[in-house]
């Protein structure tokens, strides 16, 4: 590689983890560049947490190798632990210590002289700094968890399902904090089973299913490569619109039941072309609906399962 290996934060080669007969992680390989938000997207039980915990030096792989910031996970655990921050899945900390005391405790564990108040400000918990952990709401707890993962000023931050079980508002607040990490130049390894989360935050999304990686790329790349096309739906529109739209080189279909015309788009610019053509020919149309393809469709296409359904497996 032109840049050498200095730009690589994490490198994983043919990693395998077996529990008896069950292969939780099935020979996966990937690299994560420094400064990016890398997301592992997959249902529960896909092998996300197992992989992350191997990289955090909490579990030993059955075979394969992995390097975090150039350090070998099987030999340099102490060096790695000093340089990473972790928000574990279903995070919890000392109930009756306050926000500030919890941060101080974990900073102390690292012998770190981090600016605790700066961290509290980062997660916007200034008015709760003396509140005990048990009295915080779910979203605030998760935000504290993210701050606790930063007490040692880590280069790589692992966030395992950081918004699991949160309401949409709390989820967005956690997202803001995560986006702030990228601005600070941290590498973020995010696992999630929410495709909106991967789409909103990640530079690179890797879809993992039954221990295997099924696709990697930016969210846009994945949707372009593996998603369905985007559709424009013209509500209550005359049948005559179909041949007209076909002259623009687009596939169109009249759905007699609803009286809608459904058009498969090639580019987003197709939309204005269609509207212009219909207006010129004075063909009346009702409401316009854009049906975009998402990572959900990508997952469905690649695995034959829906993310949410697969979750229960």
């Amino acid at each position, binding site marked *: 590689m032109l840049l050498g290996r200095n730009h690589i934060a994490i490198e994983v080669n043919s990693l395998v983890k077996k529990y008896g007969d069950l292969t939780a992680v099935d020979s996966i390989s990937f690299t994560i560049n420094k400064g990016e938000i890398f997301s592992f997207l997959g249902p529960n039980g896909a092998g996300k947490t197992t992989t992350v*915990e191997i990289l*955090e*030096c*909490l*579990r*030993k792989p059955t075979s394969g190798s992995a390097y975090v910031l150039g350090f070998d996970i099987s030999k340099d655990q*102490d060096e790695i*632990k*000093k340089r*990473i921050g*972790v928000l*574990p*899945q*279903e*995070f*919890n*900390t*000392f*109930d*009756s*210590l306050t926000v500030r*005391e919890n941060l101080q*405790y*974990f900073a*102390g*564990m*690292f*012998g770190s002289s981090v600016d605790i108040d700066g961290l509290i400000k980062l997660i916007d918990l200034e008015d709760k700094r003396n509140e*005990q952990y048990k009295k915080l709401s779910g979203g605030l707890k998760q935000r504290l968890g993210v701050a*606790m993962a930063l007490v040692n000023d880590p280069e790589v931050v692992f966030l395992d399902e950081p918004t699991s079980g949160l309401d949409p508002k709390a989820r967005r607040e956690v997202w803001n904090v995560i986006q702030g990490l990228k601005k600070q130049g941290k590498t973020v390894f995010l696992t999630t089973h929410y495709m909106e989360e991967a789409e909103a935050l990640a530079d690179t999304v890797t879809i993992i299913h039954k221990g295997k990686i099924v696709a990697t790329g930016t969210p846009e790349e994945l949707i372009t490569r593996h998603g369905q096309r985007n559709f424009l739906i013209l509500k209550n529109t005359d049948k005559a619109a179909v041949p007209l739209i076909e002259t623009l080189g687009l596939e169109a279909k009249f759905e007699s039941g609803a009286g809608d015309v459904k058009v498969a788009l090639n580019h987003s610019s197709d939309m204005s072309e269609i509207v212009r053509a219909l207006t010129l020919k004075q063909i009346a149309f009702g409401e316009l609906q854009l049906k975009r393809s998402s990572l959900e469709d990508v997952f469905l296409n690649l695995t034959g399962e829906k993310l949410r359904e697969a979750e229960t497996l």
Partner: protein
Amino acid sequence: MNRVLINLKASFKMFFRNKAAVFWTLAFPCILILLFGAIFSEMDSKYTLYVQNQDIVNGNPTSASENFELALNLTDAFNVETLDPTINATKYAFDNTLSYVVVIPEGFEKDLSVANATIEFIYDQSQTSAAVVVGILNSVIASYPNPPQLFVSLKYTTIAPKRFSFMDFFLPGMIAMSAMTTSIFTAVEISSRYRETGIFRKLATTPLRRIEWMLSGTIYLIVISFIGMSVILVLGIALFDVKVIPDPLSLILVATTSMLFSGMGMILSRFVKDPETAGAAANAITFPMMFLSGSFFPLEQMPEFLRTIATVLPLTYVNNGLRDAMIMGEPQRAITNTIIVAVLGVICLLAGAWITKWEEE
């Protein structure tokens, strides 16, 4: 070492913030002491008074001496017990740890007729009720015979037999019980809850080592056990006049007891994973142990087979050692018990440390 101190500081903060835990850790033994103290220490509000009547003529007590005995009975303050007139009352009282003995000497009736009779009162001056008994005795003498005509004087003989009250026995038992329950329940609670809630997993991602965490946890429980011990001692000394002999062996015993049972707690929570069941399992271990190891009642009062069981219970050695060191003043006997408890303590703690995992494989 710094991490051990940080963890220790956090543990104490959390302990003192949990008001219910503080209350039950410190108040439970106190409540037991007050209860048992009330039941056993002052079970009888009457004082047992032994009377030896040596004033016998032709094989029968003289009427003057009989009347005096009757007068003692009539006060209703004494349970009067009669002693054989031929024995040496002072020696008998000392040997059998009797508190109060009245001797009506030979020739009492005759002396009374010349207004110069004497009654001997042998008593244990260490008894808190001695002054009360002397007072009652004097008032009986002052009004005898009724109406008062003549004088009887009282001759005092004091004895100081080495005696142990129920509280002397009970207090070390309570200290041992408190160190045991505090240590095992806290260890079970913390180990199983931290595992269940994932705090161990979070700790495992920091440079904190398990051995540092264990060290800090052990120091924490030893200190809490010492606090419990102090509260129990203050209560026992202040309310029940227990005479405690300061001996470093008793501190070592309490510390090793705490190690023993915190190790046992860690082992338990490894096998019984959810916190509630682990707590119940700890109860199942400690509850019979309290009763079978002589915490509440002397082992000598128990049937033979229960005494055999007691010999395999570690708490028995704690109880015996603490009593030898703190109350009986027999440190050489306490050393053996201390060694037994210390060896078991180190084994349990090492086993607990070895068996406790922060993350599942």
